[in-house]
């Protein structure tokens, strides 16, 4: 179980390997990517910031909850902060389990709860107007 805030590029393969077990029959990963628009407005890139000590604490709580609720082997979540370009990975969630039902449900739980509860903020740089903090209007 690992929840990490990082300012480095997210490297998929090492994260994936760290949560696979010999008993794992299913592995589900989610990637949140910087896309080129938000509700149709062209986006240049994103800037993420976080209140890191609380983010990592709350993130670990979410992973523990997922492990209690679903029959999973391991789970991890890494969220990047700083300036990101289109196509870059902002957040990654990986879950391994014996069976796919638990892996899908736990992964969905972790990303939904992370987006709702973990103190991370996103500022979108638009091509056609000033940057805006998402959700803060």
């Amino acid at each position: 179980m690992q929840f990490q805030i990082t300012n480095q590029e997210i490297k998929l393969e090492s994260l994936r390997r760290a949560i696979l077990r010999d008993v794992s029959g299913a592995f589900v990963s989610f990637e949140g990517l910087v896309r080129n628009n938000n509700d149709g407005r062209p986006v240049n890139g994103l800037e993420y910031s976080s209140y890191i000590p609380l983010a990592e604490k709350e993130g670990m709580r979410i992973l523990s909850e997922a492990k209690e609720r679903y029959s999973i082997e391991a789970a991890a979540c890494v969220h990047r902060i700083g300036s990101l370009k289109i196509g870059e990975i902002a957040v990654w969630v990986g879950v391994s389990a014996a069976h796919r039902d638990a892996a899908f449900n736990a992964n969905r739980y972790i990303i939904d709860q992370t987006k709702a509860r973990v103190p991370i903020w996103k500022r979108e740089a638009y091509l056609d107007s000033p940057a805006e903090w998402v959700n803060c209007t």
Partner: protein
Amino acid sequence: MKIQIEYFALLKEQRGISIETIETKAANPEILYSDLKRQYSFSLEPSMLKLAVNEDFANWDYSLKDGDTVVFIPPVAGG
């Protein structure tokens, strides 16, 4: 008493700095935010914020003590 305040996202932008230590008589974070909101014209209503004291979530009626670190948490939008 002295309270350390850290600002993030829109609050950081509107305050212009990310951390400060202030002298205050505010009994709890609710009163403290109300003071700061007036002083710096913060646009976020307290109902939109969550609150952390000393690196964990706290209630708005928490009794502030000298040396506490307070963070007002704007609406989050990770991922």
